[in-house]
Each structure stands twice: as C-alpha cells, then as structure tokens.
C-alpha cells in the first residue's frame, strides 16, 4: 500500500471511530472492506482482471460462508440484506464504467455491466442449489477446502500461474505473446486463503462460531489486514466485532495513534531507506567484498523486518481506531536467543496457523502409527515439512524451498542441540554475566542464521544465493 492510500484509510477509520457507533461501525467496516479490495487490486494486463479478481474474492468468501455457517444462521434475514448491500456496492463500482470521473476504486475501466449481472445470477442460482443439497454439506466442506488449496497453488506455482494467464488471455481474446506469470496477481489471496481454510477446518472439527454473512465477510476481507495480515482467528475477531462500540475515546485513540506513527515510521522511513541498499538479484552480483556483502545482507534482514512489522503496526493502528484489537505479529524476533523462539515471535499469526492446522495434526498422526517413528525423526519430519510449507506459502520456487529447508533443519538442529546441552549450559551459566554471555551469543548466532536464510528469500536463483554465501565468507 502506498502512503497516500494508508493516509486515506486512516482518515476514513478515524472519522468512523468518531462519528459511528455499533451497527454503523459494522456496516462501515464491511462496505469499506469491499471497496478497498477493489481499490488496492493493481491493474493487470488481462482485460477486466482488476475488477473480476476482487469480485471472485467476494464470491469465494460468500460460498465459504455458505459452507461453514450453521442452518439457523444461514436463514437469518440480515444475510440477504448483506448480500444486497455488497451486490449494490459492486454494481455501483461497475457503473462507474460510464462516469470516468468516478472511477476511483478500480485500476482500469470496469467491464460490461451485463457480465457482472450474469455472474450475480450464476452465483445466486448456485447458492440456491447448494441450500437444497444440505445432506452433502460435509463433502462440500472437503471440496471447498480442496478448491481453496488448489486456487492457492495456482497462484503460487509459476507454471500454473503462467497457464492461468494463458487461459485468461485467450478467454479475453488478448495476445499471448507477452505472457508473464505476474499477469495474474491476486492481491491479498494468501491471507484470504488462510482465513478460509481456518474456518473450513474448524467447521469440520465443529469449532466454528456461528456468524452471519456480514460478520464473515468483514472478518475475511477486513481492510486493515487484507494485504499483509495479521491472520486473526474468527472467534477472536467476532468477539471484538460484536462488542458494543461507543466510539473512539482518548484511551483507544492514543495507543492506536502511537501504533500508526510507529508503523509509518518503520515502513516509510526505515524500511524504504534500507530498501535502497538491501540485497537483491542485481547488487548480489555487483559486490565483490565480503564486508560490503554482509552490510547489504544485514540491510535486507532489517528492511524485511521493518517493512513487515511496520505494515502490521499500521494494520493494528487502523483496526484500533475501529475498536478491533488485531493479534500481534512480531515481538522483537531478532532479539531472541534461539531459532525456536525466533519463530515464536516472527509473523506469529502465520506460525500459529501452521501449528494449528499442519504441525499439530501431522505430529498426532505420526504418533498414532502402530510403530511410531523415533522422536528425533518425528521432529525432523514435522519441522522440515512445516517450514517447507511456509516457504511454499511465499511461492513455489527453488529458493523458497531452500529457505524453508534451511529453517526446518535449523529448528531440528536447535531442538537436538538444546536437548543435548541444556543441562550443561544450566550448570555453566551460574552467574548473571555467564547467563548474559550465553544469551547474547545465542541472539547473535540466531540473527546470523536467520540473516543467511534471507539470502534464499531475497534472491530468485539458488546459484546467485550460493555465490553470495561464498562471497560472505571470502571464498569468492
């Protein structure tokens, strides 16, 4: 998000916090979120894609709600009101096709109105058909899960994205000569997918709270957290959403304002300045000295932290103005003395998500084997698999695979090392100075391990990454 966009969102949220109460605020959050997903979607070479993609997000969320909501909630009248309002907002956006001066929320001219109406009709009919097939609802949940994961993979595997772009360009009678995987960029889908999977899985486990369509839509596409998280849990979000909102007070304004200022400073001053010198594919090949190579690797490590945690602060600040307390995502991760603690404090909502929906279930499954694996082997498998998946979440490429592997193996080695040395280090670190030495050396070691891992993350090819590592240690 650009600074201007963030400032507009802050102003709108501030005005909402001052002037709106309870239902007014809830409607504001829903309508603003719908508008924002259209507004933030960048222009794409595929004709109309910047309108169809946000619309597809809305339809996907509505279908998932239909699958996860219980019968009683589904029948509530307010869901139809929500549907009508959301559809009206989309239609109004589509109508700006005829008034160029009002095309403020879409990157390009919206498509034909008839196509949108046809999509509405198909969506409505599908929802009706689904409601008649309630006895298959459990199977539909599985289908929904598979479709969401499938769509996620399509967006993350370059070859699939390429073919999707090819298909969409052919569909819109556009040339396929200048095809690029980036033709099909679905803004915010990584986070949307995680929220959808979370609710589908919890529904399968019978843990999903009962929420109406408006609440569900607001949760999944909540505009402060739409592009960069954090990934909240539905039951926690709903608690804040349903809590009475008496408007913004000084007590809520100050922490939110402080968070916003901090976030803006982190993102637009520190991170953007570091971005000028941070490691990238170009400068990786231009620098020959080990000293300067370390400097740009450090610059990248801090740039990614300040950028991401800055965005999180901004999200928390804007949400705070609206009376929503989003979960924390970062807690001084670079000051943690080991890799396990680093991952407990870096992008915390993502790691918690993976712990809940992958690591814990797979560990339980491995333990349930008649002949269970040895503990170290089980730890190795689960840690590496989890970190590989986190790597794939960023993109299915060799470098993200290596990054996941680096951290998976790191976590395993730390686990084994800590088991092996725990008693010895406790016996040695008997004085505060010795404890400080142990702590500081742990922090330095962990930071450098993470910084080396960022090389795979920042660069696009394993060969360049390897060359950078060699240069860092003066080998090349």
């Amino acid at each position, binding site marked *: 998000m650009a600074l201007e966009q963030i400032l507009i969102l802050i102003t709108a949220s501030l005005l909402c916090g001052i002037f709106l109460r309870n239902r007014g605020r809830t409607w504001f959050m829903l309508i603003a979120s719908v508008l924002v997903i259209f507004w933030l979607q960048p222009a794409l070479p595929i004709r109309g894609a910047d309108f169809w993609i946000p619309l597809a997000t809305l339809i996907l969320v509505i279908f998932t709600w239909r699958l996860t909501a219980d019968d009683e909630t589904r029948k509530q009248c307010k869901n139809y009101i929500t549907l009508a309002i959301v559809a009206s907002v989309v239609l109004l956006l589509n109508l700006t096709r005829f008034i160029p001066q009002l095309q403020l929320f879409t990157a390009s001219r919206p498509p034909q109105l008839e196509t949108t109406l046809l999509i509405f009709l198909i969506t409505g009919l599908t929802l009706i058909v689904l409601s008649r097939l309630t006895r298959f609802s459990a199977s539909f949940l599985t289908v929904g899960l598979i479709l969401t994961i499938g769509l996620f993979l399509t967006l993350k595997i370059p070859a699939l994205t390429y073919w999707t772009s090819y298909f969409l360009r052919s569909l819109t009678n556009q040339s396929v000569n200048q095809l690029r995987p980036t033709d099909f960029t679905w803004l915010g889908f990584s986070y949307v997918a995680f929220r959808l999977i979370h609710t589908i899985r919890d529904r399968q486990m019978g843990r999903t709270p009962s929420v109406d369509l408006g609440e569900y839509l607001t949760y999944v596409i909540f505009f402060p957290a739409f592009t960069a998280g954090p990934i909240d849990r539905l039951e926690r979000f709903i608690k804040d959403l349903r809590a009475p909102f008496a408007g913004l007070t*000084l007590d809520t304004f*100050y922490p939110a304002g402080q968070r916003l200022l901090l976030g803006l400073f982190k993102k637009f001053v520190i991170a953007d*300045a570091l971005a*000028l*010198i941070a490691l990238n594919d*170009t*400068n990786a090949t*231009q*620098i*020959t*000295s080990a000293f*300067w*190579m370390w*400097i*740009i690797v450090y*610059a990248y490590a801090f740039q990614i932290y300040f950028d991401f945690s800055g965005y999180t602060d901004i999200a928390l600040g804007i949400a705070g103005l609206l009376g929503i307390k989003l979960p924390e995502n970062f807690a001084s991760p670079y000051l943690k003395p080991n890799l396990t603690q680093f991952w407990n404090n870096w992008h915390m909502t993502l790691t918690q998500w993976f712990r809940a929906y992958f690591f814990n279930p797979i560990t339980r499954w491995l333990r349930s084997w008649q002949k269970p694996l040895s503990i170290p082997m089980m730890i190795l498998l689960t840690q590496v698999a989890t970190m590989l998946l986190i790597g794939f979440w960023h993109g299915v490429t060799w470098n993200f695979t290596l990054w996941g592997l680096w951290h998976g193996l790191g976590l395993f080695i730390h686990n084994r090392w800590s088991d092996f040395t725990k008693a010895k280090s406790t016996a040695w670190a008997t004085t505060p100075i010795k404890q400080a030495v142990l702590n500081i050396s742990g922090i330095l070691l962990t930071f450098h391990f993470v910084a080396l891992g960022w090389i795979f993350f920042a660069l696009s090819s394993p060969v360049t990454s390897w060359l950078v590592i060699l240069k860092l240690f003066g080998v090349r």
Partner: protein
Amino acid sequence: MNQSIKPLNVLIKGLILFLLFNLVIAACQPRVGQFSLYNALFRGRERLPFGENPRQSYNLSLFNLDAMFASHIIDGAPKADDEFRVIIIGDSSVWGTLLKPEETLAGQLNEASLNACGKNVRAYNLGYPTIALTKDVMMLSYGMGYDPDLVIWMTTLDAFPLEKQTSTPLVANNEETVRGLATSYQLRVEADDPNFEKKSFWEKTFVGDRRSWADIIRLQIYGVMWSAAGIDQFYPAEYEKAQTDFEADESYHELTSPLNEDALALNALEAGFNVAGETPMLLVNEPMLISSGANSDIRYNFFYPRWAYDEYREMMTALSQANGWTYVDLWDAIPANEFTNSAIHLTPAGEKLLAENLAPYIFENCK
C-alpha cells in the same frame, strides 16, 4: 515520582516543537549538505552525484551543491606537497556518460601517471551532465575551494546560448550562488530571470523542503552501494549510436549567420576566468563527432550546422587572443568511431586519446 503522562500534553508539546523546528529551518537555512558520510564512512565519489534512475545507478540528481561536493573525493583529499591538482569542469562528456569513473578524462589522466613540474598530476572530475557555461562557472567557483593548480574547462558551442544559462535545473535551483557570482565576478544575470526557482517561506521549512532533505539522506544511503560496488551510473547493455544522418537543416537555436555574440553567454567565459583568478586555466573546445553521413555537408552532427560551428570556432580563437586566454581547440581530435551515444560522448579509447592530446598543455601550464 508518580506523575502520570498526559498524552494530549505530549501531543501539543510535540506539535509546538515541530513547528518551531520548521520555523528555525526556514529562517536559518542551515547548510546541512556540508555534513557528509562520504570521505568518512564511505569513500568519496569520483564524480559528482547525478542519476536519473537511482535504483539502477545507486546515484541521484540533487540541487544541493554543498552535499554534491561533500560527497566528492576531492572534499576528503588533502592536497599533498607533491600533488599537482587539476580540476576538470564541463558537461556530460567530462562527467562520463556510459563511462566508468576510471575511463573518463580525469580517470585517463590519472591512469597516465603524469608528472608536471616535478609534481604528480592528480585530476578531479567536476563535470556535470548539463550543457551551460553558467553552470560551469558555478561548479568552478566551488572547485576553486579545493586549491587547484590548473583548471581545465571543456566546453562546446551548445553551452553558449543565453536561453540555456539559467534553465538547467541545477542553476535554476541555486539562484543565491549564481547571484553571488554575479556580484563577485561580474557574471551577467538578469534581475528578474524567471528561470530561477524561488522558494516561499513555506517551501524553506523542513516540511516544505522535504524533497531536498530526502535527497541529501538518499545520497548518503547510496554511499553504501558506491563503496560496495563502485557503481554510480547505469550501463545499458546496448545503446543507440550517435546520429550520423541528418535532415538538410541549417537552423541553430533561432540564430542566423553571422553568429550574434549578444545571444551567447560570452560574459560567462570572462566570469569563469575571473573566478579562476591566478590559477592557470585551459579553455578547451571539446572534441565532437564529425559526421560523414547524409547531409553532413550541412551539419557536422546532431548539435551543429556547419556554419554555426565554424563561426563559433573563429569567434573563440579571436576572443582568446584578445583576452589572453589559453585556448585549445580539439574539435576534430577524435575519430568518429570513438563516439558513443552522442556527438560529444567518447568511448574509453577516445577519452584516452583526448588525455594524450591534453597532457602537453598540462606540462606547459604548470608553475
């Protein structure tokens, strides 16, 4: 003490302090550009900052002359007893478009390890990629602060037209410096020249002038990449060669033959020599591409119709003789195949040839 913090008071105090800070900045206009990380934390730049694509060149164009010169290697190089210091001013051909720092004229002179009057010649590139004599005089006035033993002023006819003198952004944004030159060295500047960017009081505050502050900070940050990679320019893999075929067009800046001296900034040349004072200065008519393509009987190159350039050369020779200036005319010293993307930009081999042509004049003009 158990005093609770009152956020509203903190906010009000913060705003007042920020307002005061802005007012002080606007009133005092501190010369923050003088403070630089170059030549301290980072090595000094071999040429002045200039860049139109900072992300690729790790360089940027800014208007703060203090910051520009503070980032230059000359600012951190105390003059040794055995150093014969040469500063070279001029346009992009001196700065070195498409050339690495060591390939420029200054780089080639240093590479040649010349010895003049028993001292080691050390050349500094103070060229800047815009063509205007007034800009050159401004750079020279800064360069003189570094105690040169010889100044080489590379120029060409296109730097002379009056309308170009203050329209170049670097000059337009440094009115005070230019007016100072007018007072001290009789540089002619119109009192109401509309080209100068005049800043209101608001534009002088920290908020109003934030772009300049950001540029200075960015320049410091790019010091990392300059020190790390030694890159200060984007070098495209391919570029379009200088044009050699032309329309049968004899026009030049709305001037007609004979060249009207009143339409040229000849006064800037005089001012330049005044700025140099006792320091010897070589005024060099820089080499240019002499085309042999279509209509080359009418035009020498993209810049010049033959009549204008021939008259300019005659005028320069006469002027130099009349004023006692040391003038070197190297207009045809470099063969056409040693030019790159412009009629004045040379290849490394061309720059080497130019350095060899200039070396004898350096020996002649040392004291």
